[in-house]
């Protein structure tokens, strides 16, 4: 068993003008990975490909030690996927949908399922078609969390959920992570929530992975600096320094400590006025919006 729960090697997928990858990405076993990116970055495409919903044009996908598409059945038996598009209305009632799905998994826990249904306020006799959007998302989460899956892929799991339910969900995810060797990948736009929950982060933009690593290391790696140009000209191009905004002689820049040379920056005609540590949201905006 490798230390990585998910390994993507040179994965590519083209859909019209959109090109995903080549994507090289690993998610360590035991990580809670925040998978973030702007709309249309390719997050759902990546998760779908991991689950075997569509086939990449190139590259290799390994999830929970299983290769896609060779080990598709074993892979899907070890992975639980939640996606807002999933709809169980064809099964009529909540109970029927659960009975159908549970029959496919040896690791299904009926007691946990009943507890989760009660926790999320769902009734087995309710008709799926009349559930609200949030309630349908809860049902998908119940389906995923009632199992003992090794890897949990959550695509926008908090969309449509109220604050209380979101907190319950995070509690359930933490509970899930208590089990040995469990891995969670959460794709979401609720960055404040992810910052509290996730210990790893990957940022995808235009189908390319901008960065991936431990949350604390990434947040420490980047720093926002505000300063003043002393010669009135522009800041010279420096490795690891990216200008985010300029207003007259005032400049706001993103400093990537991994590549930036502080002595080189100090030699520039630039007076640093403030250094601000970044939140995940700041980092996301700095990397993606600029």
């Amino acid at each position, binding site marked *: 068993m490798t230390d990585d729960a998910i390994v993507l090697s040179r994965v590519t997928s083209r859909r019209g003008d959109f090109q995903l990858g080549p994507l090289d990405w690993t998610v360590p076993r035991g990580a809670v990975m925040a998978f973030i990116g702007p709309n249309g970055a390719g997050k759902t495409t990546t998760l779908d490909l991991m689950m075997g919903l569509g086939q990449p044009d190139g590259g290799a996908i390994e999830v929970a030690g299983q290769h896609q598409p060779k080990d598709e059945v074993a892979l899907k038996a070890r992975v639980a996927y939640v996606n807002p598009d999933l709809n169980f209305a064809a099964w009529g009632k909540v109970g029927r949908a659960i009975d159908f799905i549970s029959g*496919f998994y040896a690791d299904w826990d009926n007691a946990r399922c009943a507890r989760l249904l009660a926790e999320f306020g769902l009734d087995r006799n309710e008709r799926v078609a009349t559930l609200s959007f949030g309630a349908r998302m809860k049902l998908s989460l119940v389906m995923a969390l009632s199992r003992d899956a090794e890897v949990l892929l959550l695509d926008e799991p908090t969309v449509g959920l109220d604050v209380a339910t979101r907190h319950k969900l995070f509690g359930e995810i933490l509970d899930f992570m208590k089990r040995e060797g469990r891995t969670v990948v959460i794709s979401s736009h609720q960055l404040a929530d992810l910052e509290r929950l996730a210990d790893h982060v990957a940022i995808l933009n235009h189908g390319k992975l901008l960065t991936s690593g431990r949350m604390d290391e990434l947040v420490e790696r980047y720093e926002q600096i505000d300063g003043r140009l002393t010669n009135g000209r522009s800041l010279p191009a420096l490795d690891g320094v990216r200008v985010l905004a300029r207003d007259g002689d005032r400049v706001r820049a993103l400093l990537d400590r991994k590549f930036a040379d502080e002595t080189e920056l100090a030699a520039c005609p630039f007076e640093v006025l403030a250094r601000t540590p970044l939140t995940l949201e700041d980092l996301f905006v700095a990397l993606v919006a600029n």
Partner: protein
Amino acid sequence: MTSFVRRMVFDFRPAWLAAIAVLVAILPLLDGLWLAQPRSLIPQVFVFFLAMPALTAATIKLPVWGMLPVSRREIGRAQWWLAVASPLLIVLASLSAALAVVGLCGGVAASPAQIAALAGDECALAVAFPALALWNSIARNRLAAVVAVGWLALLAVVAFSPLTLAVGLTAGALAATAAVVTYLAPTMVLLRSTVQLSIGARRAGARSRPTLRSGMRGWATLAAPFLTDTAGMAVVSIFAFATMRLLARHGNALTDPTAAGFAMAVLALAPSIFGAQVRQSARALRGLPVSGDFLASASIGAVVAAQLLAFSALYLACRLLTGPADALLRLLPFAIGFSACSLPLYLRSRNPIGAALSFPVFIIGNDILAGSPTLAWLGVAVGFAGVVAGWVWLRFELTRGRRAYRPWPTATSSWRGRQLPG
């Protein structure tokens, strides 16, 4: 059949099971009547639609099936059992049961050759639609289109030929071949939804799809796919009329008016397609700065306009094919009224009950209307009442009804990435 495939195949909702039970109960009756009086009825016509509920259910469930720990082959097999094998088994069981019962009563008038021909014919028609759908989904290339056209041509030969032993056996052999080919195709079959209207920006690289904009241009973009679908329905209805007419020529007790009723019933399915589009777009439509009156009028107007256009094509084709088609004219107001009502019915019921009702309603309605030319005025009155009722009902559904705005699962098999070739 593996246990997982079995689980997918035998996953029926009680209401769905009841609908199938009705169909399955009707078939032996029709078969029995035919065995007792071989030239009186055509049970095959109903057989053609046996696979549709299964195909629809399999399509809607496909996104969830894709998540389950089953292989693509197993999903393909589940679809095959539902869409191809079940109709075949139902057809053969129905005919056997009818034969046993009518035989015990001593009323079998059909010869063994006729019975064999009927069996082959029914089998071919039972697998015609699902085999075509499955094959088209599997191949997804020009070859698929070529094979589909060839398959339709073969079916036309079967349907238009007299019910002889040779034709029946050929049809049976075709059915067996189609069943075997679709069974062996080692792939998960992805049936795409054709009814979902995309509202919003066009995806990069995607084929041009209708986009709702404000003003008349928006209405035009909404109506465009409906008109396309209606044109398709017109072609199918012409095909249906021609089939029925030619079957009638081969000794059945079918009359032109009944064939017309059948063709008009097919044409009346068009609002079901439009209804799906309105349903998918209901929230966006209600968000437009137009009144409920305008929205209902525009929708009903689109239905009536498209019906008239499609009807014109059908009427012209029928005149060319068989001479005067007065029965069609008598049915026209009736069809427009029915279509107008089936639009809100579709929004209310989610399921295309209107489509399911159209065949009995039209065939029975036709029998009444065909009785006397004076009764044609009754058809006009019924049609007018249908349009008015449809408008009032649709306005209610769009302005006050809640069910029209509930999300409805469509075949969301548009997964990201390339679809699997097999």
